[in-house]
């Protein structure tokens, strides 16, 4: 009798834990599903302009001052378009890195920050984080055009206004991988590795 109870107990634990693993996996998959279908609709699987394509052109007012910021037109420098938000901790972590990139790569690169939302909040963020050295654009247009779903996101455009690399950026390494991808002429470092293995 005791043995039977013990075996049933062990079996029940296994069943409970397996059910919980299943529950977690389902919740995770639902999360991924929500992410895929929002906010553009289920059929919108394309994620914005592809690498190699010309960037949409934007001519938007800067957050501070009366200047305008042009994105996507051919020029003498490449452009790093960095999507951020005042409420995103990882974006804040990357600001010093962007600052150093802006200094060391200024011969060939201009860094533009872009975000959307309420102006007072962004002005406070701009002042507090001391972002005067960057053009800062407050508009939802670039985010919609590039289908930015997660932050921080970066798009690297070459001097001809073509997309050379883009992606979610969580660290210095990922940011630098965009530049590496440009140098090597591949869409992403991952693609380069895949080609080598193929």
């Amino acid at each position, binding site marked *: 009798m005791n043995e039977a109870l013990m075996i049933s107990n*062990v079996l029940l634990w296994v069943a409970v834990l397996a059910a919980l693993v299943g529950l977690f996996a389902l919740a995770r998959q639902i999360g991924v599903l*929500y992410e895929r279908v929002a906010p553009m609709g289920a059929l919108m699987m394309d994620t914005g302009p592809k690498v190699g394509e010309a960037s949409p052109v934007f001519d938007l007012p800067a957050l501070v001052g009366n200047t305008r910021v042009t994105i996507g037109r051919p020029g003498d420098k490449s452009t790093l378009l960095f999507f951020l938000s005042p409420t995103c901790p990882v974006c804040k972590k990357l600001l010093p890195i962007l600052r150093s990139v802006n200094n060391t790569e200024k011969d060939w690169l201009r860094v533009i920050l872009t975000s959307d939302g309420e102006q007072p909040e962004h002005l406070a963020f701009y002042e507090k984080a001391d972002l005067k050295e960057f053009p800062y654009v407050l508009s939802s247009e670039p985010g919609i055009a590039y289908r930015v779903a997660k932050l921080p996101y970066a798009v690297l455009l070459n001097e001809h206004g073509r997309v050379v690399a883009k992606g979610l950026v969580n660290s210095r390494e990922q940011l630098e991988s965009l530049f590496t991808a440009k140098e090597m002429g591949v869409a992403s470092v991952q693609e380069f590795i895949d080609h080598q293995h193929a």
Partner: protein
Amino acid sequence: MDTLALDPVLARACGAALAVVLLTGAWQKLRDLAVFEASVDIYRLLPEALVPLFARAFPVLEALAGVALLFDTTRSAGLLMSLAVLGVATAGVIANLLRGHTEIDCGCGGAEGHTTLTWALPVRNTLLLIVAVLGGQDGSGRELLWIDYLSVAGGTLALLGIYAAANQLMANHPRLIQLRN
């Protein structure tokens, strides 16, 4: 407290599960301290000068609480520290919920670290507080058999599974709302 709550199997399972939750939370914060510091700053509750100090002290206390809960001799200290850690975190969340500053990352581990502030967080933390109180008990002196250890292990894993699933569902929720609109 009834006899069920004082049974050592329940107490040890709760204590071990909470210890894992606290230790994982502390590890996630310490692993990327700059991000946690930014999260604390975004809560807008502390003077700027105190943010770096708090961002370092909080995960250390969290880790100490987690370790202390695991051992008989330090259990009561572990209980006090976990109540302090959970209490401070919950107070921070409630303060921001009350003033409507909710579109921020909770910085609380959670699934993928993309959980915004909702009232589900204080509810979750209240449940964790109850688990902390149960896990902080010594339990009755009942002698444990080998099957009890199986129950403790199973119970710990089950609690952690429920916690992970709840966190994931909480992270999904804002996306569902977005989809409905």
